[in-house]
Structures are given as structure tokens and as C-alpha cells.
């Protein structure tokens, strides 16, 4: 492996890792603050991708599609939280797992009814449909760089909100002690609805910007969900910082794993997770 090829893989790993962070951050926020395990999180990623594909074919503009699709995703999160999760907060994790497992079946089948079982793709949108010449025979997609930039910017925003705003203080306090926050007169119900909608919007948005890079298939959310679980477990459940470094680690491991040791590539991330848990049973940043 020469240096340029190594560099490309490094960028790919970073880009994939950052995208994973966007999905995992929602998952870990929802668990950390609300104590809810959302198995349907991956299905929302898929919904994001399908929405943007559908709207792009309809409107002929990828950016307009995103602008419309994000509020739709937020609304979807709002409805699910109010309709189903509301009764589950005081219940055992087992019931959350089962209810969101039921949601996966419903959402996946609804997707099949609405959009069918075909595989789709979205063209890379206009200003970024180009390649950067790295060496004589190696190019790198500008769109991938753009995705990286967007993910990094969002990571920065999330970090800033949680560290430096009043909302962030409430979120951090809520993650430590929900009852205390409620006792201080903060409306936890509204906070939960907000967090869940934002979490769903983040993963759906990840699906939207990833749409031009991947093939859009039924069930695409299931595999990414499991990967994100690994990210969250490695990083420490509820920790945004953990989700970030966990996502980068897993992004790199999957990218380099499939290049260097393809025979066991799909297992590498689970081996890493087992190793981390052996040393730190609660994850790296818990």
C-alpha cells in the first residue's frame, strides 16, 4: 500500500466515521437523557435516504429535497415520541427494546409499501460533483469532503450546545439525574420530545447526505443500527464525546479492515468491542 492509497483510505475512514457519529450521537443522546433504547433509530436513517431520493426525483434538486425532508423527519420523531414512547419512560428497558423492535417492522414494511423493494441511487449534487486530483492516478470525491465538513460542523454545534448553552446544562443535568431536573421546574416532557426529535432528525439527515454515496435499499438501516450500537457501547452509552471517538475508531477499523483483512472485515468491529469491554466494561468515555 503506497502512501497516496493509504491517504485515500484514511479520508474514507474519517468520512465514514463522521457519518457514523451523526447517527450514533442521536442514539446516545436519546439513551443518555431519556433512558430509551431506540432500535428504530436505523430505520430513521433509511427513511432519510428514501425521502431525499423521492424528493430529488420529484423536484429535481437535491438541496431543496433536504430542506423539505428535514422538517418531515423532525415531525416523524415528534409523532413517534408522543404516540408510543410516552408510556415507556418508567418501564424496564426490555419493553423499550420490544416496542422499538415492533416499530422497525412497521417502518420497514411501510417503506416497502410506499417506495417498493428496489435499490435506488441519488446523483451527486451539482456544485460538488467533481474530484480532487491527489496524485497522477488517484482522485478524491469533493462531495465526500463536503460531507466530512458538514458532519464536523454539526459535531461542533452539538458540542457547543451541550457545553455552553443553558439547554446544554439542562441536558447534562438530565443525563445525570432526571428527577432533580424535574424538581427544578424544568418541563422534562418537552425536553424529551425535543431530544427525541433532534436525535431522529440527526440520523435522518445522515441518511440524506449519505444518499449520493451509498445505494438506497430496504433494510439499509438495520446494519447501520448495529454498527452504531457498537460505536455507542465502545464510547460509553450517553457520552457524546465517546460517540465521536468511537465512531472515528469504528469508521477507520471498518475501512482499513475491508482493505487489509477482507476475510474477517465484518467481524473486526465486534472484536474491537469485545476487547474494549474486557478492559472497560462501561465503555471508554463513560
Amino acid at each position, binding site marked *: 500500500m503506497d502512501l497516496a492509497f493509504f491517504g485515500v483510505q484514511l479520508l474514507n475512514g474519517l468520512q465514514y466515521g463522521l457519518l457514523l457519529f451523526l447517527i450514533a450521537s442521536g442514539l446516545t443522546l436519546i439513551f443518555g437523557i431519556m433512558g430509551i433504547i431506540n432500535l428504530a433509530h436505523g430505520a430513521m436513517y433509511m427513511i432519510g435516504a428514501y425521502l431525499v431520493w423521492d424528493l430529488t426525483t420529484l423536484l429535481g434538486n437535491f438541496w431543496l429535497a433536504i430542506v423539505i425532508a428535514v422538517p418531515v423527519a423532525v415531525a416523524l420523531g415528534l409523532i413517534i415520541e408522543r404516540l408510543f414512547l410516552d408510556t415507556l419512560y418508567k418501564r424496564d428497558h426490555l419493553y423499550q427494546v*420490544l416496542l422499538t423492535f415492533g*416499530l422497525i417492522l412497521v417502518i420497514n*414494511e411501510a417503506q416497502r409499501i410506499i417506495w417498493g423493494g428496489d435499490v435506488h441511487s441519488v446523483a451527486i449534487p451539482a456544485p460538488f460533483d467533481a474530484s480532487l486530483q491527489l496524485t497522477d492516478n488517484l482522485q478524491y470525491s469533493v462531495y465526500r469532503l463536503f460531507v466530512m465538513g458538514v458532519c464536523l460542523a454539526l459535531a461542533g454545534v452539538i458540542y457547543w450546545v451541550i457545553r455552553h448553552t443553558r439547554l446544554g446544562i439542562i441536558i447534562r443535568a438530565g443525563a445525570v439525574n432526571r428527577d432533580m431536573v424535574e424538581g427544578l421546574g424544568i418541563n422534562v416532557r418537552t425536553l424529551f420530545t425535543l431530544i427525541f426529535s433532534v436525535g431522529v432528525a440527526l440520523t435522518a439527515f445522515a441518511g440524506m447526505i449519505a444518499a449520493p454515496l451509498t445505494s438506497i435499499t430496504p433494510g439499509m438501516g438495520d446494519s447501520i443500527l448495529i454498527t452504531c450500537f457498537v460505536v455507542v457501547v465502545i464510547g460509553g452509552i450517553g457520552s457524546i464525546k465517546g460517540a465521536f471517538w468511537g465512531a472515528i475508531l469504528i469508521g477507520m477499523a471498518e475501512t482499513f479492515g475491508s482493505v487489509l483483512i477482507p476475510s474477517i472485515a465484518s467481524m473486526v468491529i465486534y472484536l474491537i468491542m469485545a476487547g474494549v469491554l474486557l478492559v472497560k466494561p462501561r465503555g471508554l468515555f463513560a
Partner: protein
Amino acid sequence: MLHRYPKRVAVIMLALLAIVAIYPLWGPALFGSQADFILEKLTLMVILALFAMSLDLLVGIVGLVSLGHALFFGLGAYTLALASPDFDAASMWWMLPLVMLVSAVSALVVGLLVIRTKGIFFIMTTLAFGQMLFYLISTAPFAGGTDGVFIMFRPDVTVGETALLDMSDPHTFFYFCLGMLVAGFLFLRWLTRSYFGQVLDGIHDNEHRMQALGYATGGYKLVAFVIAGVMAAIAGMLAAMQYGFANPAQLGWHTSGEVLMMLILGGMGTIFGPILGAFAYEILLYVYEHLTVHWPILMGLTIIAAVLVLPRGIAGLIIAPPWARRKAPLDDEEEAAADPALQPTSIKHKEG
């Protein structure tokens, strides 16, 4: 006292057992040409009931919610598939011990790692271990990849040269599976009422208190994990015999989710509940599949409804029927909400 239920539970379960056991007598009269197909379905339900029951030991009795129990189900199936000779039947006399040994060792290794984690971490790590084996098997060349492995001959049970049981006969195999289910039930009933079972129950209620009393709770949980794993593997072996192949889907996380669903539908922590749950789930599945190609929507909505309105499952309805609820201490939702130790998973202890 632990797991003492009203008499009607025993009556209902024995009546159901009798109805199922004499199916070959009434099945053909009722279903005609469909009877053989129904027998196949019934055999599968019996196998899945054993699988769901093994998970109850972890989830309902010890309070360890595993989302990777299909790992052992699939392990049993693949052990049979890979250890069977290509053009001959294996002998049940060594196949069963082999499946038990392989699954026990695997459960010990996985258990040592996952027992260290608690609550949601346990859910997620069991899920991840299940997926690990899923990917290993579905990419391994020796395991036939996503196609799986076919099993040409069911293992036979012979003494010397004479065949004791003809497993290729659907009726014999049906009774063999039913026997395994009854044996598994009696074993778990004995286990949960034993000293060991009482310690597990104590861990479910309050692990810290048990530790303070001097119990090495990790060891108890590990033994329970291994027992549950071995029982699931036996169910997996039977399923592979029934289907005639071992397939990666048998150890994917969807299978783990489904068996958890059977458990909750039937009522966990009761041992007999998961049997009802497995039957109910498979019957629902059959009905939904005939109603619409979009049956997953109906199944998903059923799951959601069951979680919301029937948290104690069918078994809960039998133990404390709605019309007999007035006097019993049954404001359990409020109590559970007020006291974290009384989460729905531990409600069974109030039924005395």
C-alpha cells in the same frame, strides 16, 4: 414462595399438552390433506417454545435481558449441520452431547464477557456477540455462507443395530420434540424451585443485597447463562433437523428479537408463559401471512400493542384474570412507577 401458581395454570397447561399430544388423532379429521403441514407447524412451535423458555431463565428469572440469544440457537443448528456426515445419519447418542458441549463452552466464554456488564450494556453486548457469530458464519466458506448448510439425514437413535426411534417419521420427530419441551419445562421448574433458583430470584430482586449477603452473584448468573445457552442450542439443533438446514438467519438479531417477543407475549418469569407465547406468536404469524403480503406491519403493531396493554402477557391473564383482580394487590403500574425495584420484570413476586 417462588413460582407457585393457581391450580388453573396446571389444568390449562395439561389440557393444552393433551390437545397437542393427541394431534395425530384429531388433526387429519379436522384438517384433511392439510394435516401433515399443520403437524410440521406444530413441531416448529414446540421447538420455538423450548427456545423461548430457555430465554425466560435469563430474562424472567435472573433479569438479564439478552438480545443475542439466537447465537446459541444458531450454534446448535450449525453444530449439527457441520458435524453430520455427508451421506449418512449421525447418531443422536453423540450428537446431543456434542451440541450441549459446544454450546456450554461457547456460553461460558461469551458469558464471562457479558456477565460483567449490566442493564442496557448487557442488552447491547449480547446483541453484538450475536452479530459477531452471524457475520462469522455468513462469511465463512466452511459454513456455506448465506446459503447455509443442508442436513441430508436426521440423526438416528439406535441401540446396537436396531433403530429405537425413526426420526425421519414426522410423528416420531414431533413426539421427540414434545418430549424435549416437557423435559425442559420440568427441569426449569425444578431449577427455579431449588436453592440455586432462589438465589437467582434474589439476584433479580436486588443483586447488591445478595452480594452483601455473601453470594458470588457473578458465578450464579454465569451458570444460568450457560444453562440457557445449552437449552437454546438444543432447540436450535431440533429446528435444524426440522428444516433440514442451518441458515445464518437463525442467529441474526431479528431471531433474537422474535424470541424475546414470544417471551413477552406469553408472559416472562413464569416458565410456562413462553410456551404459550411461542404458540401464540406462530399462530399470529400464520394468520397474518395469509391476510396480507405486508404482514410485518400487522406483526409490528401486535408487538407494540402487547407491550403497551399486556406487559405481563398471556400468563398474566391466566394467573390474575381481569375479572378476579379486585382484591389482589394489582395497582402494579403505579407501584412499579414509584419503586424501581418493582419494575414490571419483578411483578411476579407479588402473586404468591
